[in-house]
């Protein structure tokens, strides 16, 4: 990565014990940026900041700390910026102090965010908006005087002053449109900015000619007002994307950028990811994700691969097991021999597939640009007809004819069209935000409304990814008490599921409770030894006559007691059945495409009433399924969460991912939903359909406006006053119509208690990358 932290304050980490904290401390050191005055700037994301009191408590606590040069809290972005002296203190101390204050924080990688570039463009639009606003207000004042009857020298003076204001303003504020139009034309395409740029530049050019030659009509106010309105639409659109990006960045956990490498003499060193080579041995602690692909060399543990392969139940990893980057180590310490460098790892392969798949979606043309493809040639040929017709009528008066043709282009300039789409999208994004759904891009809303086939991933999408107990034979209260005690001492997902299942009853007190990675939990109780874990391991202590389930699974037994099998299933995500029913009723095809085993997929498909399902799908298989559906002419909505889903998320016509998914999945998806219920899918679709209806209405309104405006313009009756009124009236009508999206039936998910989308990323999220 591009962070320039280097080895700043590397000795600051010396005191940190060699544990999982060790790598976290190393991560922190790499996130800084050296400033000119020798201090290092760190930006922490602290999602729990929520009020003015938080600002003062953080700034008063961190500010006086030794070695802190500057601290400032940003309440809107929930960030803390700190400049510190690397010789005196380090980011670990700041992060610790923040956590002690009750604001768990993690550093934001400044290089990754490319924030500077984004900010520059943001304020460029805002400055353009300010300049256009200033110009149009002042020119309008002068124009009103002209329209009220200023004549002769006064009028000419006013026109010249208007020209002096308008020309630099158009050059400055119109850059966004000119650049985009030029880019489209150079690639042989037409977009909405082409007719806009043409109208603005022709209006300015013609008005300049009129002003210099003492003509009586100029359109400076029309040109600048047009810019002002259109820039409002642009700015709103950009703000929307900005807000979503911030939210998505906050959801993502700091990705592993390095690993603890064991050197020959048994020492452990933290190396950045790009310095790790095949053959090295990497130590992965419980609770960490694998940074690279590798084979287990030493150690025994349970590994959760659900984000990587879609397998719902943890697998046992022992010497010789091959594991992919992104798998989560659950219980024991694993020493892993690296088989691939990071840039050739499974994750990198998935990224490459994602990029290839995304190219397909690049062919999508936004509704506004589709409209422009029809609109621009139509209007431009009308202008040409008007010019020729007036040349004939006036007998060769090119000045009048040209004037009328240009006036036609000005009055038909798609001001309303330019606002018709972004305003609806911005309001749609706000509605989605209220429902806990983040939308990356306005075009995604258009694509979602078109989707006619819904493809779901299973693990983590239709299910929550955490196992749940569906059958448990433990009945005696004393056994339940022992099982609770064993389950409570382990962080394994199966133990947590059992604890939830046996939520009533006492907990026995045991001695020497120990977790054996890959096997289970064991402890001594008043009734003797008891075990909870893998069937074969538990059966060793159970009564000899106990019958083992040949398929294995989980079991519990006390010494010499009977063997109690525990069946694990998956917890179906809230609203999954309702969402699938609703999609069915709306006429969409639904199917499940999962990386899990056939038995698991079939069971879930049956419960949800989905008839089409495919199991054991690799990421490439998933893409192939989507490509096949596309070849049939279907527009696929793909909903998935894992690393293995990321290419499919990029390949689908439109895609959604839960916030609990992998970083790479969230990056690939068009929509990210932050609430637990899958009804977010139907809620988003409902909003998308209404937004699409409104966009169509807006196009209709803009068309109706042109039906009236074009004949007037062709008749040569357009004066600057008429143009100004007509254009602003049409824009206002379109914006008012779009505002209707804020009202109306709330989407189903809105009935759930609102949880701030930004607060979700606090710590419960697990993400791989």
């Amino acid at each position: 990565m591009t962070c320039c932290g280097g080895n700043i304050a590397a000795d600051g980490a010396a005191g940190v014990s060699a544990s999982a904290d060790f790598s976290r401390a190393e991560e922190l050191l790499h996130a800084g940026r050296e400033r000119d005055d020798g201090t290092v700037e760190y930006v922490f994301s602290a999602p729990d900041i929520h009020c003015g009191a938080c600002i003062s408590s953080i700034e008063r606590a961190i500010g006086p700390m030794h070695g802190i040069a500057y601290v400032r809290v940003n309440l809107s972005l929930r960030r803390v910026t700190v400049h510190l002296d690397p010789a005196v203190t380090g980011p670990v101390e700041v992060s610790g102090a923040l956590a002690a204050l009750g604001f768990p924080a993690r550093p934001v990688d400044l290089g990754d965010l490319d924030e500077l570039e984004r900010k520059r463009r943001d304020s460029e639009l805002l400055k353009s908006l300010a300049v256009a606003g200033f110009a149009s207000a002042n020119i309008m004042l002068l124009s009103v005087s002209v329209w009220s009857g200023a004549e002769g020298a006064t009028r000419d003076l006013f026109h010249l002053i208007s020209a002096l204001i308008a020309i630099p303003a158009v050059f400055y504020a119109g850059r966004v449109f000119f650049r985009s139009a030029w880019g489209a034309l150079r690639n042989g395409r037409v977009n909405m900015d082409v007719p806009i740029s043409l109208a603005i530049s022709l209006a300015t050019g013609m008005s300049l000619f009129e002003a210099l030659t003492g003509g009586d009509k100029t359109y400076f106010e029309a040109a600048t007002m047009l810019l002002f309105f259109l820039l409002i639409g642009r700015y709103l659109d950009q703000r929307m994307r900005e807000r979503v990006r911030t939210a998505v960045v906050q959801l993502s956990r700091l990705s592993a950028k390095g690993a603890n490498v064991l050197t020959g003499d048994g020492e452990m060193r933290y190396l950045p990811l790009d310095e790790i080579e095949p053959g090295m041995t990497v130590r992965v602690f419980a609770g960490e994700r694998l940074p690279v692909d590798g084979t287990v060399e030493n150690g025994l543990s349970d590994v959760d691969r659900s984000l990587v392969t879609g397998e719902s139940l943890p697998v046992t990893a022992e010497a010789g097991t091959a594991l992919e980057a992104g798998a989560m180590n659950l219980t024991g310490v694993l020493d892993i021999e690296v088989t691939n460098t990071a840039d050739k790892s499974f994750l990198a392969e998935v990224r490459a597939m994602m990029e290839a798949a995304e190219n397909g979606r690049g062919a999508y043309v936004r509704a506004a640009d589709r409209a422009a493809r029809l609109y621009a040639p139509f209007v431009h040929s009308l202008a040409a007809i008007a010019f020729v017709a007036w040349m004939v009528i006036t007998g060769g008066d090119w000045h009048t004819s040209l004037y009328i043709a240009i006036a036609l282009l000005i009055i038909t300039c798609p001001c309303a069209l330019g606002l018709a789409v972004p305003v609806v999208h911005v309001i749609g994004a706000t509605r989605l935000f209220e429902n806990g759904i983040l939308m990356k891009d306005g075009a995604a809303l258009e694509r979602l409304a078109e989707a006619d086939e819904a493809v779901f991933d299973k693990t983590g999408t239709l299910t929550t990814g955490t196992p749940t107990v569906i059958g448990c034979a433990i009945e005696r209260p004393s056994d339940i008490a022992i099982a609770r005690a064993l389950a409570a001492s382990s962080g394994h997902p199966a133990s947590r599921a059992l604890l939830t299942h046996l939520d009533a009853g006492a907990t026995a007190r045991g001695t020497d409770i120990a977790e054996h990675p890959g096997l289970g939990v064991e402890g001594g109780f008043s009734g003797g030894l008891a075990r909870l874990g893998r069937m074969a391991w538990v059966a060793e202590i159970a009564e000899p006559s106990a019958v083992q389930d040949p398929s294995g699974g989980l079991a519990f037994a006390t010494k010499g007691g009977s063997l109690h099998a525990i069946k694990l299933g998956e917890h179906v995500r809230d609203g999954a059945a309702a969402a699938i029913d609703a999609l069915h009723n709306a006429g969409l095809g639904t199917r499940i495409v999962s990386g899990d085993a056939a038995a698991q997929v079939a069971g879930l498909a049956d419960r949800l009433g989905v008839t089409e399902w495919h199991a054991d799908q690799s990421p490439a298989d998933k893409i192939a399924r989507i490509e096949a559906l596309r070849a049939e002419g279907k527009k696929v909505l793909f909903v998935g969460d894992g690393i293995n889903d990321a290419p499919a998320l990029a390949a689908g016509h439109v895609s959604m991912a839960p916030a609990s998914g992998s970083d790479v999945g969230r990056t690939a998806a068009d929509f990210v939903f932050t609430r637990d219920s899958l009804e977010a899918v139907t809620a988003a679709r409902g909003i998308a359909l209404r937004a699409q209806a409104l966009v169509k209405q807006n196009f209709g309104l803009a068309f109706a406006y042109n039906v009236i405006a074009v004949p007037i313009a062709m008749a040569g009756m357009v004066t600057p006053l008429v143009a100004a009124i007509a254009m602003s009236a049409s824009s206002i009508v379109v914006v008012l119509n779009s505002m209707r999206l804020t009202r109306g039936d709330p989407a189903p998910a809105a009935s759930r208690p609102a949880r701030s989308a930004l607060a979700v990323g606090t710590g419960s999220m697990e993400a791989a990358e």
Partner: protein
Amino acid sequence: MTLLTVLIPIALFLGLLGLGAFIWSLNSGQYEDLDGAAARILEDDED
């Protein structure tokens, strides 16, 4: 007419002043944290 030669420059000057003030406030980062600014005004500065 002579009045206009005074009034128009004044009007434009005031407008430009406003525009300049806005761009200055934008560049000096006053729109970076609107929620924070609203909260900070209620803080008592003890020192």
